[in-house]
Structure formats: structure tokens, C-alpha cells
């Protein structure tokens, strides 16, 4: 905190102000000492500034109005009970160890790569990457979630490619040479 200037607190000699600050100090008894002193200083400055606006001719009524606007000391303290919540970046704890995410990603990549060499292994890897990826994405946030999402997408892509390849193979199978319709074979002598 910046240093207090020498002439601050000029109004603390006002009996009403003095009484108010004493009451506030008592109300802040449960607060951390540094926090208590800081709040007291801030409130004192508020009173100083507010009364300075009235100049030299301020009346006890002016002082009372300033203190009334500030509120009862116990009202001020009621907000201190709540700790200021920490806002953390959305990088919460991981449900699974980090390596699981990377492993799932590798499985997804392998699924795509093995399509041409071993479609059955590719299908197994693709289902694995898709399942673990989807579950992992639900359980994680931030960078980890992205990892699982990519793995799931790779698994899904590999599965789609496998289905397309299977359909193409099947349809090309039906386009193959169709056996000729049987020729009637007859030994019967032509009429």
C-alpha cells in the first residue's frame, strides 16, 4: 500500500468520527490485523474527503450525514466474512494421468495409419481411440480435453474411412465378371 500522507486523518478529532472509528475497529476485531488497519484507514480517508467538501463550516449534522451514508460499522464488516473467491484459469485437476491423453492420441493416429495395412487392427484401434477420447473429453478441461477430442476425431475418421473402403470393396465385388448365362447344351441333332 502506498504511504499515508502526513496530513491525513485530520477529522479523527471529531467526537462523532472518533466514536465511529472506535466502533468500527471493534467490529473488525475478527479480521486480519493488516486488513483491519487498511479498512480503518480507507474509511477515515473517506470521512476526511467527504467533510473537506463541506469546508470549514461543517456542522455536526454534516458529520452525522457522512457517517450515516457509510453505514453501521457491523454492516461494513458483513462483507469481510466472505473470502474473495480465487478465479483460476480453466485448467482444473486432471481426472486421468496426462500420458493417457497422449496415448489415446497415438492410438488415434495409428488407427488412421493402419487402415491400408491391417483394416481389422485399424478398426479395433479406431474404436479404442473414439471411446477413450469421448470419455476423456467429458472428464477433462482445457488442453487435456483438446487432446482427447483430437484422439476421438481421429478414431471417428478412421472408422468412416474403413466403412467407405468396405462399401467400395463390396460394390466393386458385385461389378465383377458376371458368369455367362448357361448356354443350352444339346446333343440333339438339328432338325
Amino acid at each position, binding site marked *: *500500500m*502506498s*504511504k499515508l*500522507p502526513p*496530513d*491525513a486523518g*485530520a477529522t479523527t478529532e471529531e467526537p462523532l468520527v472518533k466514536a465511529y472509528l472506535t466502533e468500527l475497529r471493534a467490529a473488525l476485531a475478527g*479480521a486480519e490485523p493488516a*486488513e483491519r488497519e*487498511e*479498512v480503518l484507514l*480507507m*474509511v477515515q*480517508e*473517506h470521512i*476526511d*474527503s*467527504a467533510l*473537506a*467538501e463541506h469546508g470549514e463550516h461543517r456542522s455536526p449534522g454534516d458529520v452525522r450525514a457522512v457517517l450515516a*451514508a*457509510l*453505514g*453501521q*460499522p457491523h*454492516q*461494513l*464488516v*458483513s*462483507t*469481510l466474512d*466472505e473470502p*474473495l*473467491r480465487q*478465479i483460476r484459469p480453466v485448467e482444473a485437476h486432471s481426472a486421468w494421468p496426462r500420458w493417457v491423453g497422449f496415448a489415446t492420441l497415438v492410438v488415434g493416429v495409428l488407427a488412421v495409419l493402419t487402415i491400408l495395412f491391417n483394416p481389422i487392427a485399424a478398426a479395433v484401434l479406431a474404436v479404442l481411440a473414439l471411446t477413450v477420447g469421448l470419455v476423456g473429453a467429458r472428464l477433462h478441461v482445457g488442453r487435456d480435453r483438446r487432446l482427447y477430442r483430437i484422439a476421438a476425431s481421429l478414431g471417428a475418421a478412421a472408422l468412416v474411412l474403413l466403412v467407405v473402403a468396405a462399401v467400395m470393396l463390396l460394390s466393386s465385388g458385385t461389378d465383377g465378371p458376371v458368369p455367362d448365362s448357361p448356354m443350352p447344351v444339346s446333343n440333339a441333332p438339328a432338325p
Partner: protein
Amino acid sequence: MITGRDIDLAQMRKGILEFCVLARLRDTPAYGLELASTLGQDRYLFSSEGTLYPLLARLRKQGWVSTTWRESSGGPPRRYYELTADGATALDSFTTTWTDFRRAVDAVLEGSA
């Protein structure tokens, strides 16, 4: 005497008021009395002007607000409160959450959810 409305407001204010303070400081630093009188005008937000100071002490401790002294014309020097980079980040984060939260609450209240 505490009325039902007071209880509801006290509950609702928790966790929101400090971001109202940060939002008020977003564009320009301000001194305590200035902050207190603008924020204190709306009794829905601040039950009294003094509520501001425990919040400011917390915000400063958290590093979301910093303070500097400036001379004032015809009065004691004033402590100005200023939003820090961390404070700006926290305010952005709150603003996003608040927008979604408000939309969700409105949807339920209006019976469309």
C-alpha cells in the same frame, strides 16, 4: 429489522460486488469517496457506502487493484484505486460467466428453459 428483501439481496451480492468495483475502475482510476458515492447510489448493489472498503482492501490484497496517492484541490491528498492487469483478467472472466449465468436464470424465470 432485516426484511426478506434484505436477506435475498445480501445473499445475491456475495461474489458480485467486488466485480462491480472492478468494472467501475475499468476505464479510469477513482478515489474512495468517488467510488463509494457512485456505487452507493444503487441500494440494490451497496446497502451503504462503507461496504466498499472491505471489498477494496480485499481486492488490493488480491492484487486486482493498486493504489496511488494524488493531490486534490482544496482537500487532503486522495488515494486513487486503479485496476491491475490481473484485475482486468478477473473482470473479463467474471463478465463471461455472468452473461451466461444471467441468461440461464432469465430463461428459468421466464419459463422457457
